[in-house]
């Protein structure tokens, strides 16, 4: 993969259009991403807690909002702490992750949806 060009300007011999195959890593001098991630994870949690304790909105809307906050929290943990996009080349973990999220939401969502039928049947 790695080749010098004659003048030594090439980092790695990544073909044009194949830049996504280049290694991607985040290593910083001070863990700012982790510190900010921690602060935001606490903010998201306390936002959800306060909304529920205050009964700030109608129940269905409130449930939707706290689930959205939980999804934000999951994205934050994946992106900041789990180094989701890091890879030597193609980030192979992304595709199965999408599939697993799809299966998980289909499983939970359709289960809830089916249970909503009960009133009409019995």
């Amino acid at each position, binding site marked *: 993969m790695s080749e010098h060009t004659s003048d030594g300007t090439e980092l790695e011999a990544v073909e044009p259009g194949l830049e996504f195959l280049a290694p991607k890593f985040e290593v910083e001098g001070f863990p700012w991403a982790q510190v900010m991630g*921690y602060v935001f994870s606490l903010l998201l949690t306390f936002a959800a807690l306060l909304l529920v*304790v205050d009964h700030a909105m109608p129940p269905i809307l409130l449930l939707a909002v706290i689930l959205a906050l939980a999804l934000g929290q999951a994205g934050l943990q994946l992106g900041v702490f*789990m180094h989701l996009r890091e890879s030597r080349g193609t980030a192979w973990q992304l595709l*199965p992750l999408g599939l697993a999220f799809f299966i998980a939401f289909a499983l939970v969502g359709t289960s*809830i949806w089916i249970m909503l039928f009960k009133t009409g049947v019995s």
Partner: protein
Amino acid sequence: MSTPAVSERHQSIPVEFADEEESIKITGFWMFLMTDMIIFASLFAVYAVYRSRTALGPTPQQLFHLGPTVLETLLLLTSSFTVGIAVWAMRHNRLRMVFGWLIATLVLGAGFVITEISDFVSYMSQGATWHVSGFLSGFYVLVGTHGAHVTFGIMWAITLLLQLRRRGLTAVTRRKLFTFSLYWHFLDIVWVFIFTFVYLSGKIA
């Protein structure tokens, strides 16, 4: 820019990824986490279906105390942060920092498990055991499976600490610490959904 960029670029790949075999194991660990996620999704689906089936037992609103669960959330979020710093320290080759932050993670995790057990004991002492209703069965299986994962994670962290002490930061121990951090953050994500979907939504009328 004419810099000796090729060698720099290679140095910028962390050791656990630069080693081809360890790098494959990290990808494999992601696959494991995906399957574990589907296990938890099934248990969430079961809980969603059974949560209104309280029989003669308590309802979620009557049963749950938010105090201990908020404490558990804080402990686990903080431990997620500390293991994140441990990985950061590992990438800067600071073994002593890795020890410190990993031990902090372990202690916070143990605090989480102890709080959860004492919470379960207080529910059970009110007669809310898992055979009382469908809601309680689904609740204990979902939250208990997560708690068992955290307990296993603590044992993993202890063996990891012993291995780090004997071998230092090698490609293998770095990969193990990295996959441990993935496991731990994953459990944090699952907990956030338990906190939201089980405890908080249980308090919504």
